[in-house]
């Protein structure tokens, strides 16, 4: 029981740390509020889906970056998807990076 409480405390601290460092925002709280007894693993399911989706998108982005010349429209489209799902789960920093990436795509700045 003690160990369980300790784990809970650790998880709570990690969670707070993610908020404090700006990795997640209030949208994540919305996600947590949608979890209840009828759907106790909702957050875990959504985050798992997000990781899978992100992994797929990152592979596609890497492949697109390997091409020459760069297809900025394709990159922008992929980042748009990535940004959308990041935004839905509250992954604030990832979303910000996606926004920045898209700015570079719009400016056709391959170096960026």
């Amino acid at each position, binding site marked *: 029981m003690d160990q369980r409480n300790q784990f809970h405390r650790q998880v709570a601290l990690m969670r707070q740390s993610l908020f404090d460092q700006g990795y997640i925002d209030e*949208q994540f709280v*919305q*996600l947590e*509020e*949608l979890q*209840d007894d009828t*759907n106790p693993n*909702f957050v875990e*399911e*959504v985050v798992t*889906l*997000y990781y899978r*989706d992100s992994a797929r998108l990152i592979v596609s982005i890497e492949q697109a970056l390997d091409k020459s010349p760069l297809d900025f429209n394709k990159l922008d489209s992929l980042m*748009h*998807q990535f*940004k*959308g*799902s990041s*935004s*839905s*789960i*509250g992954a604030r920093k990832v979303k910000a990076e996606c926004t920045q990436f898209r700015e570079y795509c719009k400016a056709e700045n391959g170096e960026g």
Partner: protein
Amino acid sequence: MARNGGFSRRRRSGSADGFDLSPTDSEEAHVLAVDDSLVDRKFIERLLKTSSCKVTAVDSGMRALQFLGLDEEKSPVDFDSLKVDLIITDYCMPGMTGYELLKKIKECSALREIPVVIMSSENVVARIDRCLEEGAEDFIMKPVKPSDVRRLKDYMARGFRGESCERNNHKRKLHDHSSDHLFQSSSPSVSPASWSSTSLTSGSADPSSPPSVCAFPLRMSWTWGGGWFWWVGCVWEWTFLPWIQYYNVHIDPIV
């Protein structure tokens, strides 16, 4: 608020090919959610279910049309019995965008009364205007919040089928035929049955308002058999009407 005809009348159990059907309850509103992103679909589905909605989530516009019965291909399962109370769709989707889906729905007489809400993560005014003009009930910025879902419930509860709405009337207003612009009256139009008794003086039933100058929409004369009535309408418009207006402006203006 009464809900008229907004619920599934018959239930379907289990899931059908490609469609994610949630457990049914004939009292719940049925929402069709369209989004190519799995994460977003999961999120919006959960959000709607916590608001006591039955949700069908599909991953593309084509799937949505197939579900609604607009697709040319025969669906393996008969969905005719399912009624959709609201369609919420992402704007940016590969293949068919949310806007294109909206257009197809509004072009179909059987489906055009279903309220359609568009979601997007990008705040592009031209995009929003275009969707609203095409007949979308609302345009929601992603990520969707519980307050947005409460608003969606209002659309469903108000029974938007066949009813007009101020928010949805960009297109409808553009098509609205106003017969009063020629007359610029502030009083209600006189009905065809009473046009002949329209007062020509300021002694109308309501002394605080000008006489019914918008008394005789020309179109009424056409519907009443053209011919003689048309001439009467013209005489009214060209002779008596200017005198009434002159009287109101120069002799006895209503301040």
